[in-house]
């Protein structure tokens, strides 16, 4: 009868070996499945479940599956149970190369723990060789029911690389022979003690006073304090600490030849913050660095150069790739204020990144970018409008539109010239934006520039131009009348004609009156377009019933062609009726 108190191996070896062979084969296959597929894949789950079932039953029966690891084999109770000489795929070799010599699965193992075991192997297998160490990984996991053994010799060999270990010499003769003559005070202390044996306890009590102060158990609140210190240090955000330390090191470093390499540390710290979506912290990091730069400028220009070079490098492509990734993967989870803060902190690169985000964003998400861009652009428009003007790109219309919109809030000849440039833009969006902006400027030049838009290829823009233009002088009027010549009108659609007529009908000027008189002279016969133009003119004059237009309508009613009379009469009737009402 097996001993009740001990759960140990009680298997019959021969039967067990076959079972273990199958089990180990399944172990390696499950491991392969973990390497090929992600852990949640059905194949992996199936392999794991099968292996787990078999292993569980084996462990229930035997307590432990204890495998010895050879270079390319697993051994169980002195017998090879698996062999794979292909070092690229061999699981035993994978273990062996890191010095693992023994691997044991114990009763109590759970499927979760087993899955973690395979995931750990997978994780290590995909690491670069320099960083891969299965023993370290197992050790750190601290499995409950999987144990392993890797001898110290492996690590010692890695360190010594054939060299002897430093030798510590002990002179045994000196150690165990000769005499120690105690000094007077020490000898006396012992003698005094021996004489006053009764007071031994008192002496211990004296020491206990010290002990109470220094060695006494910590009180509960003191434990809690320690636990809270540990906890708070566990919570310390590594990225923020890295940033802070980098600045401190830079502040103190006096090995100037190290500085160029140290720039890489600054980038690492900065990128770490960005990768973790800590834009406000990244902004603070840049601001601190900028403040340090001011301190260093006259004191340690070498450091200043490093900071400036670092800041300049932020504009580089690899940063943009990172920014883009964060922006698009965060899907709005990051606060707009933080983006704003960050882009403001990094200065010009912020504008470049924003421009690129505009270029890469689908139209539907542009409005959220606008919220970030607006204050930044306003700041730049205030401080360096010229820089902003240079950033307009035909190929990035939404971004350029924001720049135009922002700059339009400012007045001045430079802005007018800037806006004038868009008259030839290939992007209708930009031409329209510039047109709107020009209309808002309190400048005669701007108004004249708008005239140019009457020739725009886009009807919409031309209509807008006609609607917004304010005729300031005769020359402008002449220009408009020229554009509105019957010949040209015939090429235009109704809404543009309406817009032009509205603009003219609201302008009181003999030239306008004359213009309409000429319009009403247009022959209708076989010219339906002319008829339409004339009728539109009457309609528009009716809408703007100023004295000039009334006179004109009356004049046509009296002197005009027969076909026109009734329309003018009707129009005047409606005007009168409106007035009566």
């Amino acid at each position, binding site marked *: 009868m097996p*001993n*009740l*108190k*001990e759960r*140990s191996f009680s298997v019959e070896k021969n039967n067990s070996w076959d079972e273990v062979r199958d089990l180990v084969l399944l172990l390696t296959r499950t491991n392969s499945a973990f390497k090929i597929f992600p852990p949640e894949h059905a194949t992996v789950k199936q392999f794991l*479940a099968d292996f787990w079932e078999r292993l569980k039953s084996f462990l229930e029966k035997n*307590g*432990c599956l204890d495998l010895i690891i050879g270079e390319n084999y697993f051994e169980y109770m002195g017998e090879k149970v698996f062999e794979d000489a292909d070092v690229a795929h061999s699981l035993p070799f994978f273990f062996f190369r890191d010095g693992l010599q023994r691997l*044991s699965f114990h009763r*109590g193992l759970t*499927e*979760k723990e087993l899955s973690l075991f395979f995931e750990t192997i997978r994780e290590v297998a995909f690491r670069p060789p320099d*960083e891969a*160490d299965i023993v370290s990984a197992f*050790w*750190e996991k*601290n499995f*409950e029911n999987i*144990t392993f*053994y890797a001898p*110290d010799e492996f*690590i*010692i060999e*890695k*360190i010594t690389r054939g060299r002897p*270990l*430093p030798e*510590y010499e*002990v002179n*045994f003769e000196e*150690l165990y022979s*000769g*005499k*120690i003559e*105690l000094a007077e005070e*020490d000898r006396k*202390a*012992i003698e005094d*003690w021996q004489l006053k044996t009764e007071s031994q306890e008192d002496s*211990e009590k004296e020491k206990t006073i010290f002990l109470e102060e*220094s*060695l006494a158990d*910590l009180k509960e609140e003191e434990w809690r304090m320690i636990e809270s*210190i*540990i906890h708070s*240090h566990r919570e310390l955000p590594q990225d923020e600490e*890295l940033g802070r*330390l*980098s*600045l*401190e*090191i830079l*502040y*103190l*470093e*006096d*090995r100037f030849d190290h500085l160029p*390499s140290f720039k*890489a*540390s600054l980038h690492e710290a900065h990128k770490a913050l960005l990768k973790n979506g800590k834009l406000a912290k990244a902004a603070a990091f840049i601001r601190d660095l900028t403040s340090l730069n001011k301190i260093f400028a006259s004191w340690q220009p070498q450091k200043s150069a490093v900071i400036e070079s670092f800041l300049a490098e932020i504009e580089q492509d690899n940063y943009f790739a990172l920014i883009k990734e964060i922006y698009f993967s965060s899907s709005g989870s990051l606060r707009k204020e933080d983006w704003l803060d960050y882009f403001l902190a990094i200065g010009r690169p912020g504008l470049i990144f924003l421009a690129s985000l505009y270029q890469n964003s689908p139209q539907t998400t542009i409005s959220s970018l606008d919220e970030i861009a607006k204050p930044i652009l306003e700041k730049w428009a205030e401080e360096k409008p010229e820089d902003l003007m240079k950033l307009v790109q035909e190929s990035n219309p939404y971004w350029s539109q924001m720049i135009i919109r922002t700059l339009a809030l400012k007045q001045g000849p430079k802005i007018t010239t800037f806006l004038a440039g868009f008259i030839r833009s290939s992007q209708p969006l930009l031409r329209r934006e510039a047109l709107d902006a020009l209309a808002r400027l309190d400048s005669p030049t701007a108004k004249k520039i708008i005239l140019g838009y009457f020739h725009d290829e886009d009807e919409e823009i031309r209509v807008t131009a006609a609607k917004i233009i304010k005729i300031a002088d005769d020359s402008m009027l002449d220009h408009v009348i020229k554009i509105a010549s019957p010949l040209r009108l015939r090429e235009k659609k109704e809404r543009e004609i309406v817009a032009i007529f509205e603009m003219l009908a609201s302008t009181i000027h003999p030239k306008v009156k004359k213009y309409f008189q000429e319009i009403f002279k247009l022959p209708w016969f076989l010219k339906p377009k002319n008829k339409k133009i004339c009728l539109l003119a009457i309609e528009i004059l009716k809408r703007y019933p100023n004295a000039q237009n009334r006179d004109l309508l009356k004049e046509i009613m009296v002197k005009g062609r027969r076909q026109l009379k009734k329309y003018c009469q009707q129009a005047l009737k409606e005007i009168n009726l409106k007035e009566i009402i």
Partner: protein
Amino acid sequence: MNQRISAPSTEILREIHQAGVEIIVRFNSLLKLGRLYSVKNVLFQEQLGLLYKRIKDNCQEEEATLKIREGTFFFRNVRLRFIFANYPAFKTVLQELTKREVAVISFLPELTESELETFIACLLKAEGYNQLLAGLDEAQIVHIQIEKGTERTSLTGKKEKDRATARIYFSSLLHLKDAFEAEDPHQALRLNTTRRLMQALFTHIVDNEAFVFGLTNIKNFDEYTLNHSINVCLLSIALGRRLGLDRNELIELGISAFFHDFGKIETPKEILDKPAKLEPHERAVIEKHPYHGAGTLALWREIKGIPLRAIHVAMEHHIKEDLSGYPQTFKKRPPHLFSKIVKIVDYFDAITTKRVYRPRAFTREEALSLMMDQGDKEFHPLLLRIFIQMMGFYPIGSVVALNTGEIGLVVETNPDPALTLRPKVKIIADKNGQRIDGPVVDLAEKDPISQRYLRTIVKGLDPEKYNIRPADYFMASTLA
């Protein structure tokens, strides 16, 4: 079909953890009481009743197992994390079970109190696993089952264990020396190896802590900075373990302590070893080593994955608790926990080491006393107290005069805080002062008749005054 069982809630896990910790603590009390009194003693019975109740509560439906894996306790599949207040109990129970190669104890639902009492009595009597098994068999205990540990190797002999520990110690020295002396440290630093080394050191600390502490008495071997760094690394890991840091944290703490003085590579040797008081400009050079070290480690971080905490420690290990010290940057802020730990250990090892500029080193107990006197300005007061608790009133390696006239070397502290003054000592000189290869005696041992302690420490002695090199005694056991 395999049935998946949903994971227990955090609340349940916490309860199991609490029960596990209490079981260890009560188990420890019973082992202590069992050595002093009969199992029928009232105190023993009181503790037994409490332990029995706790176990029964946890094995009502199915067996409850207490496991030891790689120096860690698991109770009902929950890893038990000790806090330093329970450390002595954890340490003692771990030692007692490991000594007898017991890896698993399963308590079955039908367990009776009398079985538990007999089990503890058998455990106290048994020297090894087989003896315990035979005892349990004889007493017909059926509701407590044990399993033998399989994960440990054959390093069971003390001498063999010590030798292995010493080999790792000197390997660490060589590894650090490689990093310090390499023309191109980028090539020399093999952090994977360093991590593995830290794991090995941790394992030796768990298995053989007293000897590891003994080895930290090795001073000025080869280069001071290297030797010092290894000692600081070992004691820092041990202190971190007392604080309940997890494995990864301990590895990072070890690496941080290992490289804490890395900046001294840049400090000219003539300044480091100047046998006189340093001039202000020389002191300024010395005081650069924290940020030189931090700067170099920061450069390595990207290439080699140096933990951030190592940079903290290199930078801050001379910053005092009141934020004075060096280096001072543009902003005062409290140092990292790891820096506070390393600062304590660094200070202790430094002042207990003889240097050209410090002809007389402090004895280990003097050092602790001095550190206590520094007050809260220099060290974190609670961390310092835990360090002192860890080292004991007479730290391992202290030379002591006994009331018998013998001279002893402290080789193991007493895990019971009440018996801190009664460590285990190796007798190195008899009552006539004759140097001998004496036995290791437990100062907690009492005369069975008079109930008086057999030996008591009268005072600590300065080893240097008597040409005693404590480290030699520890190393002797590995060389003989």
